[in-house]
């Protein structure tokens, strides 16, 4: 895995079911912590975007472009929101991921390097290289 990436990193927050067991006070506390965390990262220039997502949406799939409901509102895997980070190394991104206030309650944070170009294009270059070798 590249440890340096000038395109930044994306944090995907997974889990839509973890707030069920919390009291209103606890919920408010985590929300405040999460907002303060995001504002601080924005102020430091380490986060450049971020959004919560509505719990429910649609899935469009396959050749026939079928539309179905999903993801299910309460799921450990569903994505609840994201941050886009402008930090130089994977380690920096990891340090930030570990600060997520939802972690003690079961939230999982996926850390992904943002790609410079579409993976289709890099695949094509790779094939061309292979063909010319």
């Amino acid at each position: 895995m590249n440890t340096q990436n000038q395109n930044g990193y994306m944090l995907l927050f997974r889990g839509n079911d973890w707030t069920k067991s919390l009291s209103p006070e606890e919920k408010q506390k985590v929300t405040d912590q999460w907002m303060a965390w995001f504002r601080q990262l924005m102020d430091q220039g380490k986060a450049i975007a971020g959004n919560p997502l509505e719990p429910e949406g649609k899935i469009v799939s396959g050749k026939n472009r079928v539309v179905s409901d999903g993801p299910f509102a309460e799921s450990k895997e569903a994505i609840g929101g994201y941050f886009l980070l402008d930090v130089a190394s994977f380690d920096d991104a990891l340090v930030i991921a570990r600060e997520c206030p939802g972690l003690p309650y079961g939230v999982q944070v996926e850390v992904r390097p943002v790609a410079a170009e579409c993976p289709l294009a890099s695949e094509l270059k790779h094939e061309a290289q292979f063909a010319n070798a």
Partner: protein
Amino acid sequence: MLLYRSSGWYNTLSQEELQKLINQNKAWFERLTAQGKAKPGHALERTGVTVSGKNGRFVMDGPFAESKEAIGGYLILDVETIEEAIAIAQSSPGLAYGGSIELRPVAEECPLDVRARELAREEQLVNV
């Protein structure tokens, strides 16, 4: 927000097919951008880790590159209705080859906030 879920299906395409799809994708994205319907999106590298547990003490490799569920990239749409967003998702050239697109409304505010307010209101009603 459109979340692209894919399993690396494009690895099975020939060079010509791949080039055709790239051109289609580019034209599709440029058209949406010109119409002011798409904000910049990004592809994600097919590597990464997942952090979980208190203080982030568990760090696992993943998602796995070939997983059907893995998110391959995203695009944020600036459209008014979910119907329009669905129509745009359906017109994505890559769908013809497999994979799926998850479509999620971007929330005005954090759903946690909304829920906390609802609970506070319920409590108020009970106390009245």
